[in-house]
């Protein structure tokens, strides 16, 4: 599936819920299936700045696709990074770089899209794209 197809899938799933509680509960649920970062990568260097809770992210390149793993000490943040990783992981770096992130708005997390938001969703997206950029540079 392309990034866009995964995003559409996520939008479909969230469209089943009609209040924020259900959406958040589902997001928390998704956090539980997050591909967890290996312990040795869970270092201070891999913490994403600007989040009130801690978020660790790691990226590998497997068959010219970027594979992300992550973790967080807060479950909502874990849900958010899980959604982002589901949309971006296992994709060619260039596709990740090109991807837009409007789906965040469409699944009802618009309020998290402010660059000043303490949960750092915008910082997470930036970090994932930075990894993709690094691997893309490697490919060229």
């Amino acid at each position: 599936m392309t990034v866009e197809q995964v995003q559409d899938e996520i939008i479909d799933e969230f469209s089943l819920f009609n209040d924020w509680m259900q959406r958040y509960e589902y997001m928390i649920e998704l956090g539980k299936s997050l591909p967890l970062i290996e312990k040795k990568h869970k270092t201070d260097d891999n913490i994403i700045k600007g989040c009130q809770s801690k978020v660790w992210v790691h990226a590998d390149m497997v068959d010219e696709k970027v594979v992300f793993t992550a973790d967080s000490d807060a479950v909502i943040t874990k849900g958010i990074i899980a959604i982002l990783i589901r949309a971006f992981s296992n994709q060619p770096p260039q596709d990740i770089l090109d991807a837009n992130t409007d789906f965040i708005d469409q699944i009802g997390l618009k309020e998290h899209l402010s660059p000043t938001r303490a949960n750092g969703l915008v910082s997470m997206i930036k970090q994932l794209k930075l990894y993709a950029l690094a691997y893309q540079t490697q490919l060229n």
Partner: protein
Amino acid sequence: MKLDLNMIRADFPILSRKVNGQDLVYLDNAATSQTPTQVIDVIADYYQSYNANIHRGVHALSQEATDKFEQARQSIQNHFNIRKSHEVIFTSGTTHSINLVAFGFGTILDPGDEVIVSALEHHANIVPWQMMCERSGAILRVIPMTDDGTLDMHAYKELLNKKTKLVFVNHVSNALGTINPIKEIINNAHKVGAAVLVDGAQACGHIKPNLKNLDVDFYTVSAHKLCGPTGVGMLYGKEKWLNKLPPYQGGGEMIEEVTFEKTTYADLPHKFEAGTPNICGGIAFGAALDYMNAIGFEAIGSHEDELLQYANEQLTQIEGLRIYGDNKQKTAVISFNIDSIHPYDVGTLLDKMGIAVRTGHHCAQPIMDYYKIPGTIRASFAFYNTKDDVDIFVNGVQRAVAMLR
């Protein structure tokens, strides 16, 4: 005297707004208090009627603005029971006030001199002193805290000695709400000849301190913590100290004579008020004190105590909930965690329910380090909060916990 909460709440337009589709329940008063119409009107009136740069102006607008600004200084003087009006220095807030004093002490302390901070401080009352100690070679000592969030007064007395030059401690801890025994702290410090700075940022919206009786050397306040505007505060300093400290900032108003060879400084309070002050802010600061005094700090205190007790009773029913700093002497602040749930998760869900609390380290990392936690959820009440607010809040915490467990 019971507060007429309907009347009071009508003074605060923001309290009737919606957040995320819910009625706002504002429990982040320790971060900043809300502003009543009476104060907003004073601000608008300033810009509509007599905005002008103050002091030295011979024209009527400048005179009106100067008079109002100086009247505000007197309101502040009266409120805090300060001997002389020129002991009231307008600053841009507590952080500025503390930095002003720290800068000054940096120039008069000798290497090896000791200064004492408490473990319960906001970063604003830690970092300026660390910077000062680096410059002067003075040594920073720390009064340890105990498990119930109070200071170890025995250890404090042990720390005091002839080398101690200054003790700085907050009146009320912003992270826990603990009211420190400042009278005792001051008396003991004075016995060894040390001065005391009390950071009143967190106290000033709840307690009316009598600075003359306290015999404190410095006291700091931020107007935005007592229904006033942002960007203004005060430093009280005893005249003898303010005369001893060098000026902090250079500029207009703080000088008597300027040549390129030599500059002489003006008298108090101008020596410490370089540049155009927050004129409108100072006037609104005075208006905020007038507003709160019209309600009365005694009535405010007992209402807030009631809210605190009620919230405590309700919250402690929640399984796995721990309140930090659960001691007898505190303002209406409850700092807590539930099991291993991250405070950020609870804060986020409460926000979705329209309830504003603060989560995190509250600019008091040493307290978090003491309890070995990344942060807490902090609900902090003001006189305009109600028992209904408490009910909605406790119910919200329960719903959040149910989702997060």
